[in-house]
Every structure is written in structure tokens, then in C-alpha cells.
């Protein structure tokens, strides 16, 4: 692989229930999640602003639900904040999107555009005609899809909204974001359960490495929705901790970043994605994690070099157990300290990208945040680490991240 380019993280944009901002806001929260949470003044959410249909499934926000329904029990990190803490404050979102622009943008598109802009600002970049975009999502704009269907079901053919229809296709967030930041390179939307954010960042990093892509905005987004949670819980029979939000990274070739004097927030040394045997929506039994080996090999690392791990544990117990077994199979007794932020922030496609950004912070600071949200105590770690994601259905994504 001669001529492979190195991939630098130069910007971070995060928008979720607990964090709004760039790399500094993320670092502050990672250093002490409890301090940031109390500074925000606790619960601040009402039902989402754009739920216009009258009480149809999916139209109500997560906050409309009895407390506790979102709560993850058992699994990794049983300590979870109150459910309302996993929904993005409408006022904060409104503050990031211009009113005229908001009229034609669904809420999940607004989350995406806002986080993408935060990331570009964090990287010190404006619009760039060659900018690439990779968006990972699990559910897309399901709320608009439901609203579109409800229009017909309540009023017949004239109840169908042409304005909503484009939102029923999952690339609507990428489309809105490309327009908002004038990204005219290649635009991808990758859809997969649980690990869409990790996959989007891995795909983007691979493109830069190979010299196909220059600067890329890569990340993930999902919004909370009652229908999703109700159905997902029935399907997985597991108290998965759903949340919402968007997180984007600005990735660029290291030489380009150095040439423009960009601040370096970490390096993606290697990434791999593969499939482990599992039926759709189900966990598998195998632990043959060739994805880990491939990512390590591409990064020029061995398992012994890995000092810490971010995992996709989210309170979905069978899946969490499978991921843990997979890691054990590769690292044995020497499994490094690990953490997932899903129990605190809720599972959503933005989280995978946030984990990569957090991994950059860990590699530079030598600190791994606590897996217990009620504690502010970070663990001291060293060396490069992995961001690891394993989804029901078998999609497996691994990124090696260094300072």
C-alpha cells in the first residue's frame, strides 16, 4: 500500500442532549460529564417542535413517554440519566438553524446541518466545493415518512404533502446538508443499525487514505421517535437505550491539514468493516473478529499496542454480550479498559462518530471517560485505541485511533 495517505481529524461538531459545540465542548464534557450536565441546569425538554400530526405513532417525542421507558437496565453501564436528558433541546436547535431555512428542513435534517456546521467551524473551514459528505443513519427521517403516510390516511390523496415526500428517502439529511454547506463532492448515506456513525467515518477515512477523497465531513444522525422505540423493543426484546443527536468529524489528509496549519484532533490510522454471521435483527454466536485484525493490520499495530477501547454497548443485553465475547476472543485476559457513551447519551447513529472524536481526545489526553455517568472520574490510559462497533445483523466496524 505505497502512497497511502494519513487521515487527520481536524474538526468535530456535536449536537445531542448533553453536548452542543465543537471539540472544546466535547473535551469539556468528556473530562467531567457531571459538571457539564449540572451547568446546563438539568431537564430542559418538551415535545419536539415539528411534530404536527395529531398523535399518530412516531409523531410524539420521546419525552412524551412515561419516565423509565427509555431507561437501560443491566448490560454495560446500568446508570442512565433520566430519559428527557436524551432529547435535544428545541431552543438550542432553533439557535443553530436560521428561521427561513428551518421552514423547509425536517427536524432530523436540522440536527444534521447544525452538527455539520459546528464541525466545519471547529476545523476552521468554510464552504469547500470539493467537500465530500458521508452520513450514517439507522432510521433516516422516519418521522416525516410517518407524517407523510398520516396525511393520506387522514385526508386521502390531497392530504399528501409534496414537501414531505423527499424526506421519506434516507438521503434527505445528506441532501439538506450538502446544500447548506455547499458540499459538491461525493455524498453518501450509509444505513445500518447501531454502527452507522462508525461505518460512515470508516468509509470516509478509507476514501482519503486511497487518495479518492480530499476533505470529508463524516458522521451520523438519528432522532428519537416513539414508533421506533416501541417497535424496536418488541423486536429485540431488550431495553436498548435509544437517544438522539448528530455528530460529525472533519477528516482530511494529514499533509493537507499540516499545510494549512490546522489543529490536529487525532489520527485514524486504520479502519475495517466486515460482516459477522448473524440473522437480520439478531445477534450471532461466532466471535471470529477478522475486522479487528484487519483494522490493526492497516494501522500497523498489534493487539498488544491497544491501550483502550470505545465499544457500542447500549443496554441491548444479547448484543452487548456478543460484542464483549468478540473482544475477549481477540484480546483475551488482556482486554484493555473500555467504555461506551451510549448509556449516557443514548444509542443513535451520531454516537459512533462521537466515539471516534472522543477516541482522538483520549489518545491525546491519556484519559478514558468513566462508564458510569454519575461519576466524573476518568481513567488514565496510554497509547492508541480502537473504536469498536458490532450490530445485530452482523455489521462489524473497527477504527484504530491515535493522537
Amino acid at each position, binding site marked *: 500500500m505505497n502512497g497511502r495517505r494519513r487521515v487527520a481529524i481536524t474538526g468535530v461538531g456535536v449536537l445531542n442532549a448533553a453536548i452542543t459545540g465543537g471539540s472544546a465542548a466535547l473535551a469539556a464534557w468528556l473530562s467531567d460529564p457531571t459538571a457539564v450536565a449540572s451547568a446546563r441546569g438539568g431537564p430542559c425538554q418538551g415535545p419536539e417542535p415539528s411534530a404536527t400530526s395529531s398523535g399518530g405513532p412516531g409523531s410524539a417525542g420521546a419525552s412524551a413517554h412515561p419516565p423509565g421507558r427509555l431507561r437501560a437496565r443491566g448490560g454495560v453501564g446500568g446508570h442512565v440519566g433520566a430519559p428527557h436528558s436524551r432529547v435535544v433541546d428545541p431552543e438550542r436547535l432553533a439557535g443553530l438553524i436560521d*428561521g*427561513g431555512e428551518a*421552514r*423547509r428542513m425536517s427536524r432530523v435534517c436540522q440536527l444534521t446541518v447544525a452538527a455539520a456546521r459546528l464541525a466545519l467551524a471547529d476545523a476552521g473551514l468554510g464552504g469547500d466545493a470539493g467537500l465530500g459528505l458521508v452520513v450514517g443513519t439507522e432510521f433516516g427521517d422516519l418521522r416525516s415518512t410517518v407524517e407523510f403516510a398520516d396525511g393520506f390516511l387522514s385526508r386521502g390523496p*390531497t392530504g399528501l*404533502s*409534496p*414537501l414531505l415526500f423527499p424526506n421519506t428517502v434516507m438521503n434527505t439529511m445528506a441532501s439538506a446538508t450538502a446544500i447548506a454547506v455547499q458540499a459538491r463532492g461525493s455524498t453518501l448515506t450509509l444505513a445500518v443499525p447501531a454502527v452507522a456513525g462508525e461505518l460512515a467515518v470508516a468509509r470516509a477515512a478509507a476514501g482519503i487514505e486511497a487518495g479518492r477523497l480530499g476533505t470529508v465531513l463524516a458522521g451520523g444522525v438519528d432522532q428519537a421517535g416513539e414508533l421506533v422505540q416501541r417497535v424496536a423493543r418488541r423486536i429485540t426484546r431488550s431495553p436498548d437505550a435509544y437517544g438522539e443527536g448528530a455528530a460529525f468529524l472533519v477528516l482530511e489528509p494529514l499533509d493537507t491539514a499540516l499545510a494549512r496549519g490546522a489543529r490536529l484532533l487525532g489520527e485514524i490510522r486504520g479502519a475495517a468493516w466486515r460482516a459477522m454471521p448473524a440473522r437480520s435483527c439478531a445477534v450471532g454466536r461466532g466471535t471470529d473478529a477478522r475486522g479487528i485484525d484487519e483494522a490493526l493490520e492497516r494501522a500497523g499495530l498489534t493487539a498488544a499496542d491497544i491501550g483502550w477501547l470505545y465499544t457500542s454497548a447500549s443496554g441491548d443485553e444479547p448484543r452487548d454480550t456478543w460484542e464483549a465475547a468478540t473482544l475477549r476472543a481477540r484480546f483475551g485476559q488482556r482486554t484493555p479498559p473500555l467504555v461506551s457513551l451510549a448509556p449516557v447519551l443514548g444509542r443513535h447513529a451520531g454516537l459512533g462518530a462521537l466515539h471516534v472524536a472522543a477516541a482522538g481526545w483520549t489518545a491525546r489526553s491519556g484519559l478514558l471517560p468513566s462508564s458510569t455517568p454519575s461519576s466524573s472520574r476518568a481513567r488514565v490510559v496510554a497509547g492508541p485505541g480502537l473504536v469498536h462497533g458490532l450490530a445485530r445483523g452482523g455489521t462489524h466496524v473497527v477504527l484504530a485511533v491515535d493522537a
Partner: protein
Amino acid sequence: METKDVVEELRGIFVNRLRFDPARAAAIEPETPLPKGVDGGVGLDSLDFIELSIAIEERFGIVMDESQDLAPHFASLQTLSRFVVARVAGT
């Protein structure tokens, strides 16, 4: 039905179907150009106009003839309300 009433109905459609902020919809003057690309205009694009025509058909019980060029009628709230009044009257 008078054009004044139709303008008010149209402002309601701007809020409910085109998702305008109520204050912004109320501030649209009858003469303000609606289409995108006109300075000082409201900035509606093709998708907005399709949504608007469906909403008008539904609200006023009229049918827009797609084989005709309707663009002149959609120039402003004034032209649009006159068009709707004429069509409701069956002329």
C-alpha cells in the same frame, strides 16, 4: 368570497402547509412576489408551489388545470387570491 378573505386563507395555508412562521406569513404584503429568485420576494420554489396548489384545491374545492401556465397567477398573494375567487365563482 372576497379576495381579502382569500388572502387570509392563503396566509393560513402558508403557516399550516408551507410551515411559515405565523408572524412572517402575516407580514407578507399582497403585492410581494412569491417565487424564488425575485429580490425582496417570499422565495417559494417548485416544491412549495406544488404543495400550495394542492392545499388550494383542497381548501377551495377547485381543480388547477395543469396543462395551462399557472405561473402568472402564483406571482403574489394578490394575483393568487383573484384567481381563486374567479375559479370559485366558476368563471
